[in-house]
């Protein structure tokens, strides 16, 4: 047998590339590590001794629950948008994206309203700092998501997004990540305390 190469099966031929989807999966894994670290910091401080949360901290749990329900509701509308886009139903996709956008903005509004109600800040105590960090990053993450949904909405409505491309699905993956982060932060701060 000579040393010449054998004809081996090749990989990658005609493979759908889905570059954006993979890129978003990596971004989401990084985001998970980011929120995971902050939640781990919260839990570490919680077990480090002392009163946790500090005395005098009162939450309006109704607002927290409404925030997380708003985000969970947006999962349905986002999935509806992806489904409609995959089937070439432009109007439905645009409507669903519009509703998702509205829910995202409602969440941000609720978050900023709640932040105005609480009676502590980052300098008050370690609890205040780590909760501020969590809520600030969550606000930024959802804000970026709102931007992505807006962009996708304009592209869909303006017939700039070909059906069958992975752009809408990529936006959806990011949105689901923000929903997951919202649930995790809500569970840590409101439920677990």
């Amino acid at each position: 047998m000579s040393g010449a190469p054998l004809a081996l099966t090749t990989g990658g031929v005609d493979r759908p590339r889905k570059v954006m989807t993979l890129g978003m999966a990596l971004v989401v894994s990084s985001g998970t590590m980011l929120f995971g670290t902050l939640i781990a910091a919260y839990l570490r401080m919680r077990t480090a001794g002392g009163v946790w949360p500090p005395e005098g901290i009162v939450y309006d749990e109704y607002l927290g629950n409404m925030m997380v329900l708003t985000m969970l509701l947006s999962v349905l509308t986002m999935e509806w948008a992806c489904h409609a886009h995959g089937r070439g139903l432009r109007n439905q996709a645009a409507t669903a994206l519009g509703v998702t956008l509205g829910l995202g903005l409602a969440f941000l509004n609720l978050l900023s309203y709640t932040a105005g109600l609480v009676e502590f800040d980052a300098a008050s105590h370690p609890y205040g700092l780590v909760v501020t960090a969590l809520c600030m990053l969550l606000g930024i993450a959802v804000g970026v998501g709102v931007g992505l949904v807006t962009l996708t909405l304009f592209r869909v409505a303006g017939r700039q997004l070909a059906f069958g491309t992975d752009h809408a699905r990529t936006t959806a993956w990011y949105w689901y990540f923000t929903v997951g982060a919202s649930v995790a932060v809500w569970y840590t701060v409101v439920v677990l305390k």
Partner: protein
Amino acid sequence: MTITETRPEEARPAPSAGPATAAPPEGWFATADHKRLGLLYLAASLLFLLVGAMVGMVLRAELLSEGTQVVGNDYSRLFSMHVTVATFLFLAPAWVGVATYVVPLQIGSGRLALPRLHAFAFWLFVLGGALLITSYVVGPPAGLGLVSSLPTPAPKGGADTATSLMIASLALVAVSALVAAADLAVTVLKLRTPGLTLRRLPMFSWAMLTSSLITLLATPVFLAGLVLFYLDQRFGGTFFASANVGARSIWRHTLWLYGRPDVYLLVLPGLGAACDIVSTHARRPLLGLPAARVAIAAFAFLSLGAWAAGSGVGDALVLPTYSPLTALVVLPVGALVLVWLGTMAAGRPHVHPSLLFVAGFVLLAAFGALNAAIAAAAKVNGTAWATGHLHVVAFGAPTLLLLGAVTHWAPKMLGRELSAAPARVACLGVFGGFFLMGLGSYLLGYDDAPARVKDFGFSSDASTFSTLSALGAVVLLLGLAAFLAETVRAARSSGPPAPADPYEGLTLEWATSSPPPPHSFDSVPEVRSAHPLLDLRLAEAQPAPGPGGEQ
């Protein structure tokens, strides 16, 4: 059984390559071309290295002897700046630069998956780097920065501009690293030419893939620490106050330089580059290629063990260490050195200067390991020994691999090979410089001279050791200057360009011209193994099939 050997057909057009008459890419500032971005990354990181090296020289002058006053009360500020700049703005981005240039060529794609995003990452890195240096110019940021294993408490009333600027700039650099890592990972995973499966990936691309994935997991942890640090400093909180025991572990595992995997990622791409250098210049495929691939993946995975490190690990980045998980990283490195030696013994090596850089890496790493073993018997915690060890193991050894990689791929990057004699002199200078610096600091450590302190009770021996370290710094600077001068000479030379494949290379980057055209490839050879160009040469050497088609 009949085995049909198929001669690779005529070169197939690259899937993503542009036409041969494609317009040249945009100017340097607006470019999204991977080759230009790679060179920009390298140039910027070398510029930042010069800043870090000059500050290092000033620190060395301060430590030359008892009573020397060069920087006065600014010693801590400059020390923190030297370490931060060298760590965040030189080695890691320089490897990104080499990868940005070489990886798309090695995988036969000739482009990045998300080129505009990559350009954004580069300019973010430049902005972050410039702001980081500015933060040290406008005033000393609080504490020793990220060099100390103890948290920096916030001042009452909030931090000054310098501290806020330092944290913000580090966040920018971290985001830039994340974006670049994501793009490199997507490029390798999605844009490989048909036939180039992950098991056939060139070792440098493999190392960059694993390094990028670990960066994507580890850097957000650092970012989260920076967010906590920023809020604490900005609003004058009590989170990182010395009494807060819980926050100490958060600091150690998110922010402290040696409690995160990043410090190991400075060498990981170099291990992959060394594999490619050795196999190319030994003119044979790497002996035990699967083992080398596993070793690199294991090194990447084990680097996450840094999160389990205790506060003493800064003094022992290799054995002996305070954490078994961090100690294990030496095993894959040892396996790789054996693979390199075996490949050289089995091949037909020609002594290219890049091989000397790899040899320098092995010697310097062995020197570090030897001293780590000696330190096990001596009490060196908190002494200048740690400074020597960092210069030898964490910075010196990977820097040699980086320069070796640039020398190896110079025909592609610069269009011409580096001349052998100046490259060898530069190699000797850089190796010798790090060796002398390390030796002086190790001896200072054995003499109980403290680390990070500008004035201490100098014995006559300590003065000699300090002079030895300073001499090493000068030799290092001369070596780096020689390397840069030779690089500039090769880039500006008006002589004929290097041939497409000056070394009888094995991987796809040697299938295109030197330097590559704007569209990177006119055509990409068919890939049927991990060494497609060797296959091509072997197939061409086969006798043509007879009239009956018998093979």
